[in-house]
């Protein structure tokens, strides 16, 4: 089976028409390109740039949406750094990220290796079905998984019960709820990551694998010495993007604890940073404090993006 084309180089544009004499090009013609792209930038400015900048402004206030707005400088930030709930949310986010990213990337690596096998039949079918979890709505996924993991009526606890294990209350325990959310995240993203890896793998000439086989390399050695090194740039890319995605996990924790959704349980056992932001901003209506948390999240994403940039330029230089 022919590998799918992986390069995204656009077709070469046709040669531009000869330029009209300069004098005949009016002001309108010179401005028109900007008019064509303006709709995007206008909408972006209203719904993207302005709210983004405004968040930084609001973060400096004690901002009651239906009352007074008092300038308090950096007080929201001092409060945040001293707030155990913030650090709890940060810890939960980190834990859920680790529990979801590591298995997800390992699984994707192995699956990509298998799907790239020359003798695999129905390869297109398997490759496409990888994307099914990705196109399923997050809310639907969360509701189904929450039922599978339910303490009293869940399929998983029923199976555990068959082998004599006491029912586990996943949502109420810290580790259990993290595992539950991480499973949902892994389920949703592993296919997407697999396809990214597969695309990179297909750029590796078949001949390299064949030569290695002739030299006596077994499957594990081919995986270890050909697959993994050739995937290094895309692995770093997926680690970075999944970290940024992991900082923003929101829907899953919001939906699994139906009694206390905004805190994800009685003791905030699975409240992530974005959920904490939402709780403070739109549950408690502390807009200033919520914005400060948003600014902190933004700073974390910037740092991670910077690391991504440094790593990828280093790899390109190699």
């Amino acid at each position, binding site marked *: 089976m022919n590998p799918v084309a992986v390069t995204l180089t656009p077709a070469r544009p046709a040669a531009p028409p000869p330029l009209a004499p300069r004098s005949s090009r009016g002001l309108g013609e010179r401005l028109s390109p900007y008019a064509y792209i303006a709709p995007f930038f206008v909408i972006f400015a209203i719904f993207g740039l302005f709210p983004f900048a405004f968040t930084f402004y609001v973060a400096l206030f004690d901002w009651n949406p239906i009352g007074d707005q008092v300038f308090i400088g950096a007080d929201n930030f001092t409060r945040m750094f001293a707030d155990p709930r913030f650090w709890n949310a940060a810890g939960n986010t980190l834990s859920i990220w680790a529990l979801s990213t590591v298995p997800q990337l390992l699984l994707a690596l192995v699956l990509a290796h298998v799907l790239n096998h020359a003798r695999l039949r129905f390869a297109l079918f398997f490759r496409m079905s990888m994307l099914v979890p990705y196109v399923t709505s997050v809310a639907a996924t969360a509701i189904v998984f929450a039922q599978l993991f339910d303490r009293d009526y869940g399929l998983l606890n029923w199976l555990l019960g068959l082998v004599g294990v006491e029912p586990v*209350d996943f949502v109420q325990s810290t580790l259990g709820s993290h595992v539950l959310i991480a499973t949902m995240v892994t389920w949703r993203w592993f296919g997407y990551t697999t396809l990214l890896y597969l695309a990179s793998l297909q750029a590796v000439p078949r001949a390299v694998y064949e030569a290695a086989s002739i030299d006596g390399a077994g499957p594990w050695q081919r995986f270890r010495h050909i697959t993994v090194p050739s995937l290094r740039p895309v692995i770093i890319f997926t680690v970075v993007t999944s970290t940024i995605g992991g900082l923003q996990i929101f829907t899953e924790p919001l939906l699994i604890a139906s*009694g206390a959704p905004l805190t994800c349980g009685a003791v905030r056992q699975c409240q992530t940073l974005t959920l904490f932001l939402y709780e403070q901003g739109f549950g408690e209506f502390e807009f200033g404090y919520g914005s400060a948390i948003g600014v902190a999240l933004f700073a974390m994403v910037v740092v991670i993006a910077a690391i991504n940039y440094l790593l990828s330029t280093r790899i390109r230089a190699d």
Partner: protein
Amino acid sequence: MTLRSPLLLAAAAFALITACTPGAGGGGGGGDGKSFEFWSFAAINQKSSVDAYREKHPDVDIKLTEVGTSTETAQALTTALAGGKVPDLVLIQGDNLPKFVQQPQNFVDLRTLGADDIKGDYLEWVIEQSVAEGGEVLGIPTDVGGMAVAYRTDLFAAAGLPTDRDEVGALWPTWDAFIETGKRYKQATGKAFTDNAATSVFYQAVNQVSQKYYDGDHELIYDSNPEVRTAFDLGIKAATAGITAGQSSFENAWSAGMGQGQYAAVAAPSWMLNSIRSNAPDTAGKWDIAKIPGAAGNWGGSYLAIPKRAQNPQAAWEYIKEMQSPQGQLEHFTRSGALPSTPSVYQDDKLATAKDTFFSDAPTGKIYTDSLLGLKPFYIGPDSATIGQEFLNSITNVEQSGGDPATAWDDAVRNIKTAIGG
């Protein structure tokens, strides 16, 4: 992976509501003067009142929106007040009310529409909660909760407990006796007695106090008030006694467990009866209602308010005046079971002799009005809801997540200090 940033999303939503700042909507008036828009919460059956009003006034067009839970309705109202389109009439649950009463400039002072004339119709301690510091009357109470315990007669019989509602009430003069009854039930059946300790024990007991989280001068006393501590310790005692099903109120599994007889008794203010009816329709006739342990108390109740920027305040006020009059509330009781906040109808036959077949013909009107007799009103402040939630969370943590009962109180107080910033 895309960078769908909730930060940006949240910020965008925020911009939307701040961009159109208050004032843009213009001050009251406008519209045809008779029709109005009404936001209520779901599952409280305001629709029956609206339908009744429509029938009497066919020329009035009422647009009723059931926003969601009471909390969601309050959140939507906050967002709307901050700069969106406001309804003409809105239902606010008692727990959410203080935050709005603190910002009276957002609502029509109902005295300007004639609230002084009807103020005396309502239980004083109930309407008092909707009066702002400057004396503005911001809301008219639609109902009060009252308190009782709903229990399954078939499950009680199987456990060898009495089933008659008076004998059952006599089983638990105090909360300690309630917990002891729970132990007897558990011993006989091996099953859970009540749904959870946080709501069915603590939340009831803490609403039977003379002062709750604030003292008479509106100062916070939640961490030093012995009455709160006693209620909390009862909650912890119930949580560690092994008599609860560990089902937090209003969660999906709680609703399911109700139908399956996972627990035999549940705290039931008058509005809870609707919830039992819809969660466990197959158990009709197997329930009964007994008096609550301890003293008189109230849980819940809602208010109708008119936002300042409402387009049709007069039409909304006409609705309030008619449907929340003592007679209007009495009729609403016969339709939905919500207990009136107007004591003048408590002796009315329609209420005093009302029976509910779903609950073995229990005299609901009498049980709930009795639970309000001799009630000592306490002040509910802006942070009351947050404080109550943290206490609940701490008890739930002991009950369901293996939290340490010995440190539960200190944990709760610390969490409250963090949450309310003081």
